[in-house]
């Protein structure tokens, strides 16, 4: 989150990579039409939506929440209820799920005055309450029996029956969220929440309404978490309270941190690692979570910037080597940023 007012430099640096990734995601199902692989990619896209929301909250505005699973759960069950019990069309339920989570997050407004560990524990408390609600209100949520019979997603009267179309739905929504949040950088709103993270006192002294902006970030993060929950409900079509425990919140936090705090692309990379890696490690059975944990530690040892910074450094190195071999310049300039 820097270099606003300097859009030319930034665009040139980011655009080709972004276009490449988008193109790859579009053609991917044609190269790898395996249902299971597309399902995992959908789950990664869904997780990345929630993670990007948390990135805005933590990475941009500096508020640590370990209760995002609450909003994810509220979104999932809202969407399930709206479609399965009330026959609301999916697109409406998707937005409704986000709205329900956003409204629930307004309960958090009083606690945005808290910071650091105090805020984190308060969000945790909220997620415990939501979990217990899902677990115990059987008449509404099915309780520990789970919520069954969630219809498939449908768009414009067309039911997304095959895995490929639901892949496009999930990745498409993730892309919309990404490009929406990317706009925050270099805007008045983006600078202000960035300022709050770096020094709330100085932000106040500049006339920034700190509490209001912090609350806005909570609402934004909750909205997209709710949207992610809705997509999850229609992807898996079965909800159980255990999908929305404290652990889910921690997973989202891991995504943001290993991806790189403050980096939107990092949140997606983090989601890919946290959701995808355990699947690839299935071959080693019970050891997979052990290996997964070790990989998390190793990623953190590489540096605070997470995977996003790691890739950026790697990219610069490769570019420097390529430049040098192309122009045969003497070495020693690659460290310059």
């Amino acid at each position: 989150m820097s270099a606003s007012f300097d859009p030319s430099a930034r665009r040139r640096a980011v655009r080709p990579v972004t276009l490449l990734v988008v193109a790859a995601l579009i053609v991917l199902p044609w190269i790898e039409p395996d249902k299971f692989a597309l399902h995992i990619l959908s789950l990664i896209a869904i997780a990345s939506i929630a993670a990007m929301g948390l990135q805005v909250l933590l990475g941009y505005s500096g508020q640590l929440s370990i209760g995002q699973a609450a909003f994810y759960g509220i979104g999932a069950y809202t969407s399930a209820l709206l479609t399965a019990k009330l026959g609301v069309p999916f697109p409406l339920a998707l937005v409704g799920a986000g709205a329900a989570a956003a409204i629930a997050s307004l309960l958090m407004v009083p606690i945005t005055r808290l910071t650091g560990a105090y805020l984190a524990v308060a969000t945790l408390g909220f997620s415990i309450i939501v979990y217990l609600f899902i677990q115990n209100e059987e008449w509404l949520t099915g309780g520990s029996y789970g919520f069954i019979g969630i219809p498939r997603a449908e768009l414009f009267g067309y039911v997304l029956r095959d895995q490929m179309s639901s892949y496009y739905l999930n990745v498409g929504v993730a892309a919309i969220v990404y490009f929406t949040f990317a706009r925050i950088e270099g805007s008045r709103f983006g600078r202000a929440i960035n300022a709050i993270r770096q020094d709330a006192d100085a932000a106040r002294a500049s006339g920034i309404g700190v509490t209001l902006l912090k609350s806005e970030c909570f609402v934004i993060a909750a909205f997209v978490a709710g949207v992610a929950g809705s997509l999850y409900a229609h992807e898996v079509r079965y909800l159980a309270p255990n999908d929305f425990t404290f652990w889910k919140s921690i997973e989202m936090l891991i995504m943001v941190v290993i991806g790189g705090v403050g980096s939107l692309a990092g949140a997606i990379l983090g989601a890919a690692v946290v959701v995808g890696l355990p699947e690839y490690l299935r071959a080693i059975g019970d050891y997979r979570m052990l290996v997964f944990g070790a990989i998390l530690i190793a990623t953190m040892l590489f540096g605070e910037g997470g995977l996003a910074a790691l890739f950026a450094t790697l990219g610069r190195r490769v570019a420097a080597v390529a430049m040098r071999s192309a122009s045969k310049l003497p070495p020693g300039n690659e460290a310059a940023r």
Partner: protein
Amino acid sequence: MSTTADDGAWLLQARSVSRRFGGLLAVDAVDLAVRRGSVHGLIGPNGAGKTTLLNLVAGVYRVSSGMLRFGARDITQHSTAKRARAGIRRTFQNLKLFGEMTALENVAIGLHAQMRAGFFDAVLSTPRHRREERSIRDRSMAVLHFVGLAGLAHVRAGALAYGHRRQLEIARAIVARPTLLLLDEPAAGLNVTEAAHVSELIARIRDDGTTVILVEHHMDVVMRVCDEITVLNYGRRLAHGTPGQIQEDPGVIEAYLGRSGENERAQA
């Protein structure tokens, strides 16, 4: 910038303002009247309550008793952000810049309250967003010129030299053309040349129509640039007058510029 019209000569009036921290009366029934368009010095030995008084005016602390008038309005209960929006801006003794942002972005934050574009304006890149961004950039750049940092606009604030950071804080505080500027030791840690530059900058800020309250230990800066001075000691007002009067006030000389004062002067 947005104060209500008030034809009184006083921009800021603190009436019998006190602030208690537990058992300590940091500021004890102090009266302070700041003339519109002046540079008002706030001096006194360490622990005299200068910074506390400044923080009371800025709204960081609420007064334990007494009242604060800014122009025609009573701001005693207003929050820091509300006072900032009303036209009271400040710098900090221990620099509080946004280290990861560029110098230009730091100044842009100072204009936050002047603008309206929110989250959706940014996402949709509305005309308002684009218009405001342009005006923020132009105005911020102009202020960087004013303080002499134009060449460093795109440098990260955290990477700037110490003296430049002091100037940047002032730039961020004045970009919105505040009515009242609170400077908390703007020359602290600066060498003689840099301190002279700050004095000259303060005079230019006043000449542009901003009233200044200056807390400063550099006596040459205070005496050169202040129109009036209030002296604090042990949280109480010891004296009030022009620099000439203050320098000759026997009470001040004894408490502040006396024997130990000579040492301080030499250090400064």
